[in-house]
Each structure stands twice: as structure tokens, then as C-alpha cells.
């Protein structure tokens, strides 16, 4: 039986994190929460429920938090790592599907909410951003995933090792897709249904989204240059 680790990045998720962890208990998987220097009571909630967690001493951003999870997975010799948001957006029923797809021989599997267009489809601004990233992906690497910003994804040992060593820090979901594609990993989408965030605000909102789009575009172009050459 393969060893599966669920990586849960959590920044100020005191209201959601317990539910998220409880939803994983019925599955036969390990998990690790990465508390990304939350300023609320996330840490004490984790301590109180005796959760398996890693605590970053201050807020380092999603990329750093997720990479910590991949490093932990690599050090503890996990076969499959799955990124799973701490805010209740992701549904644990699909974890099995992600694992199955990896077992079919794919390197990375992305849980996409746009493949069957069911469930929460995200805000209008976010969808515009996603559309834009898809266009950029097509231009840069000639293909795209249906959900480039999805943080619900699984990867195998090869990719765990790669991510433990190289991981983008700013808007990692879109960047990792381009990077892993250029490296030559085999990536597929599977349909998932996502929920609306239960509590707290999404990390991308308002004026930030314009900044996000400019920054993501520039990073993707640079990634194309950096990793395109390595081939």
C-alpha cells in the first residue's frame, strides 16, 4: 500500500482547520498541517486537537508553506503527496480519485472545478484571471490545465522530490503547472466539486487581483525562459 500524505497549508484558519482535519479522519491517509505564522488561534487549535502540524515561526507565504510540506513528505519517504486547502474549499471525497489517477502512472493530478463545471465556480474576477492564465499557458507551453489556480492536486514521488528542491513562492499553483510541464512531467486534470470558503477571506481579492495578473504573467514568462532551456 502506498504512503499518502495530505499537505494542508493554513494561514489564519482557526475556524476551518478542525473541520478540515476531521474530514480526513475517515480516510486511510496521513496529513500534516503547515501553520504559516497565523496571527489568530490556529496554532492553539492545532495543539488542542493534538494534530500533526509544522509551525512556521512567521508568515512566509503559501509557496514556502506548501514547500515545507513537500520537504516533510520527501524526508519521510511518502509515495504520494496531496495539497489540500485548510479553508474547507476542498472535498475529501475526491482524494481517492486523485490517488487512483497517480496510481495509473501520471506524475501530477490537478483537481479541476471547470472540467464538469459543477459546484462553486469562484468569483467573476478570479475567473477572468484564470482565463488569462490559460491563454498565457497556451502561448508559453502550447497547452493548459482547465484549472491553473486549483490548490487541490496530487503528485508522485518524482514530483515530491522536485518540489522539495524547487518551488515558486508567490503564486505557486499557476507557476508549478508551467514548470512541471516544461520539465516533462505527465500532468492530468480530474473533475472535482469545490465548496465556497466557509470562513475568512480568500488570499486573492480587490486591487490585489490586478497585481496578481501582472505578476503571474511575468513569472510565467520567466519560468518559460528558465525551465525551457533546461530541456
Amino acid at each position, binding site marked *: 500500500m502506498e504512503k499518502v500524505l495530505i499537505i494542508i497549508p493554513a494561514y489564519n484558519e482557526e475556524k476551518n482547520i478542525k473541520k478540515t482535519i476531521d474530514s480526513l479522519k475517515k480516510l486511510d491517509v496521513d496529513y500534516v498541517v503547515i501553520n504559516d505564522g497565523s496571527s489568530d488561534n490556529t496554532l492553539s487549535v492545532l495543539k488542542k486537537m493534538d494534530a500533526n502540524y509544522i509551525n512556521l*515561526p*512567521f508568515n*512566509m507565504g503559501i509557496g*514556502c508553506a506548501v*514547500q*515545507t510540506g513537500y*520537504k516533510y513528505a520527501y524526508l519521510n519517504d511518502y509515495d504520494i503527496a496531496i495539497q489540500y486547502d485548510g479553508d474547507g474549499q476542498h472535498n475529501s471525497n475526491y482524494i481517492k480519485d486523485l490517488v487512483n489517477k497517480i496510481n495509473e502512472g501520471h506524475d501530477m493530478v490537478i483537481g479541476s472545478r471547470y472540467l464538469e463545471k459543477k459546484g462553486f465556480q469562484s468569483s467573476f474576477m478570479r475567473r477572468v484571471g484564470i482565463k488569462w492564465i490559460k491563454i498565457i499557458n497556451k502561448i508559453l507551453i502550447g497547452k493548459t490545465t482547465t484549472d491553473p489556480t486549483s490548490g487541490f492536486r496530487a503528485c508522485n514521488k518524482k514530483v515530491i522530490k522536485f518540489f522539495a528542491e524547487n518551488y515558486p513562492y508567490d503564486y505557486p499553483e499557476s507557476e508549478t503547472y508551467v514548470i512541471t510541464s516544461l520539465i516533462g512531467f505527465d500532468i492530468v486534470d480530474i473533475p472535482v466539486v469545490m465548496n465556497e470558503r466557509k470562513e475568512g477571506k480568500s488570499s486573492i481579492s480587490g486591487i490585489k487581483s490586478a497585481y496578481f495578473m501582472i505578476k503571474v504573467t511575468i513569472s510565467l514568462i520567466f519560468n518559460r525562459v528558465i525551465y525551457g532551456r533546461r530541456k
Partner: protein
Amino acid sequence: MALNLRLFLIIASIVLFLIVSYNVVKNKLLVKYSLLWILLSLILILLSTFPKLSFIFSNFLGFEKTSNFIFLVIMAIIILICLSYSITLSNMNKKLIKIVQAMAIEEKESRSKNEN
């Protein structure tokens, strides 16, 4: 150029050079971060001592006024210094990330060991 102005410029650029050197000697400034500052102060000393040099270069490059040429030289070096800061900062940031991750994983492992 008036002699007092020239004298003033020479003294000012020597003072800049001394401030930079003093901080290196006192270990407040690492040599590798002082290099561009030293370059800047040496160029300033050179140009103020031999103003003819700047006339020659400025005419050669087609500047309307020599002062514009000098401003451009100084600005170019300051831009380089700023860029070097961004590079250093990015380096520091990468190292910080590695330290934080290693420390956090270490802390987690010692915690798990204590529990067992």
C-alpha cells in the same frame, strides 16, 4: 570652473570616500557591498580634480551641458547600487525561506520524538 567650487567638490568626494572606508574598517560595511560606493567616490574625486576629463567625455558623447553628463554618471552608479540591493535582498529571502523550513521541520521532529 571656479577654484572654490572645485575645491569644495574635491573635499566632498574625499569625505564620501572616507565615510565608506571608515565603515569598512569598522566592520559595519562588508567589502563586497562597499565596492560600488568606492567606485562612485573615486569617480567623483577624479572628475572634480580633473574637470577637463568631464568636458572631454561630455563633448565626445554629445551632451549639451557637462553637468548633465556628471548627473548621468552618478545616477547610473546609484541605479547599479539599487539593483545590487534587490539582488542581495532576493538572496537573503531565499536563504531565510530555507532556514525557516529547516527549523520548522526540525522542531516538528523533536516534538514527535518527545511524544513517543
